[in-house]
């Protein structure tokens, strides 16, 4: 049982990072427009995030240094400073989207206006950050988020034509109605949603919070290999549900209520309730993860003391940063901006910022002064290099594609 609970960090990172509001929206949008023809991107993203999260986790466990300390140490204050500003902005956008997501999900469950739920959600997020123990936080949010498995159940209940779904996925065959640039724009968005840098900040800092050492490298591997593929499967089932129900009906997803439509159709109110609880837990977990990551990245760049394992008074600047981030997020939402739109923006901009985070991790994972005998093996380095090429290509293509396609419209 302890081994299983030991995977909680990976599950929360994956549930919160992979199946956050960004993925719920992006996968459902993609499923309803392209069927499963972008499923390969999710697979590529899962392998990539497994690779780099396990590398960052290994660096943190062996050297005790979390990702942003390494980013600054290798890139110097100027480039790392640009990265911290960009990462903070993206993480803040994501946090905003997640708090909005909690409010929307609570709105679905209660039909109380989302704007009334926003401050409640923000306050709840802060209270957990302030008071709840790291392990308790990750177990509760991670395990409740698993209720999203309801999407997979719904898929089976819908009894789709599996052969047809497979034909959409391999070889990838986008519907003729969509333009190639739009297809690639969503490919980059999905890739960005899968590999968002805050997942790596959170995972490596979480390893420090849980005081991992070289002895915990097996735990690191289990976490990564269970958590992220699970997140990938949940993402795919969300996309598949949309492909089965929404694509033939010609419904384009623009609200959370449409994402859960297939679930309601297949499993009735009971399954819908389960999935809504799952969505609240997953977006709540993601809100915690992004709020913490905003604190982690700034604190590690400037060298402040940080971490939930310390008394808040002993990581004062870290906690002040997180309070400001949550307040800013709530403030942005109160202008009644659409959280779904904020999400789509944040996902594309994460694709732009990816190389600045993943290059230093790969470099330090090869530095024997940090890693001793735990440096990268040849296979990991070869795969890492291939992924760097993909990551740089996605980063360069993101903004031009966004402009060319009018953000996918």
């Amino acid at each position, binding site marked *: 049982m302890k081994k299983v609970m030991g995977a909680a960090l990976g599950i929360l990172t994956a549930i919160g990072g992979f199946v956050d509001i960004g993925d719920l929206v992006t996968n459902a949008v993609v499923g309803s427009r392209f069927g499963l023809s972008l499923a390969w991107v999710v697979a590529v993203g899962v392998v990539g995030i497994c690779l780099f999260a396990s590398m960052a986790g290994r660096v943190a466990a062996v*050297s*005790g*240094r979390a990702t942003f*300390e390494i980013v*600054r*140490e290798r890139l*110097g*204050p*100027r480039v*790392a*400073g640009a990265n911290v500003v960009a990462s903070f902005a993206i993480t803040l956008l994501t946090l905003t989207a997640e708090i909005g997501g909690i409010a929307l999900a609570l709105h679905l469950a209660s039909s109380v206006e989302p704007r009334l739920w926003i401050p409640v959600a923000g306050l709840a997020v802060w209270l957990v950050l*302030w*008071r*709840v*123990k*790291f392990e308790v936080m990750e177990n509760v949010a991670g395990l409740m988020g698993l209720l999203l498995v309801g999407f997979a159940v719904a898929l089976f209940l819908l009894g789709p034509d599996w052969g047809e779904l497979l034909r959409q996925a391999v070889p990838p065959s986008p519907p003729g109605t969509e333009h190639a640039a739009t297809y690639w724009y969503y490919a980059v968005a999905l890739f960005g949603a899968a590999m968002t840098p805050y997942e790596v900040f959170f995972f490596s800092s979480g390893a420090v919070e849980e005081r991992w050492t070289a002895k915990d490298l097996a735990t690191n591997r289990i976490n990564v290999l269970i958590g992220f593929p699970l997140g990938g499967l949940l993402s795919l089932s969300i996309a598949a549900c949309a492909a089965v129900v929404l694509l033939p009906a010609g419904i384009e997803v623009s609200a959370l209520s449409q994402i859960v439509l297939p679930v309601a159709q297949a499993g009735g109110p009971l399954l819908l309730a389960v999935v809504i609880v799952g969505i609240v837990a997953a977006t709540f977990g993601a809100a915690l993860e992004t709020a913490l990551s905003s604190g982690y990245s700034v*604190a590690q*760049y*400037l*060298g*402040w*003391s*940080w971490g*939930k*394992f*310390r*008394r*808040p*008074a*002993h990581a*004062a*600047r870290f*906690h*002040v940063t997180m309070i400001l981030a949550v307040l800013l997020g709530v403030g942005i939402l109160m202008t009644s901006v659409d959280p779904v739109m904020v999400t789509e923006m944040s996902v594309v901009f994460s694709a732009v910022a990816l190389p600045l985070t993943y290059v230093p991790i790969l470099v330090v994972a090869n530095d024997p*002064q*940090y890693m001793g005998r735990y440096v990268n093996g040849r296979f990991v380095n070869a795969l890492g290099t291939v992924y760097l090429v993909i990551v740089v290509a996605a980063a360069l293509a993101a903004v031009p594609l966004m402009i060319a396609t009018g953000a996918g419209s």
Partner: protein
Amino acid sequence: MTRERIVDARLHLLSRQVLDADGEPVRAVDDLELTGPDGQEARPGEAVRVGAILVGPSLFTRLFGGAVLASRLPRIAWSDVAHVGTAIELSVRSDELDADWVELWLRDHLVGRIPGGRHDPEADG
């Protein structure tokens, strides 16, 4: 630590994490202050040594130019450094350092005053 090793200031000192005697993070190394061998001002053409680690405002002057009065810069004396590894470890505790005043101010005036601010999360409850 009698074995000699080459320390590259840019690679091994700048931007490394500084930890105090208890292993608590203090700041990252934002800049280094060089002094003459006798602790006097460094002079061109003469040997210099690292006198102190500078933190805080010197990061901004390094990034954006400009200058801060040298006497105003928060510094950690090099004599307080115990070990240079993947982090710089000090032989003193952070609350004895003037360099950490922002953290201490926020602790005493803001975060420590919010209910639960001094609660130990590792304790049960």
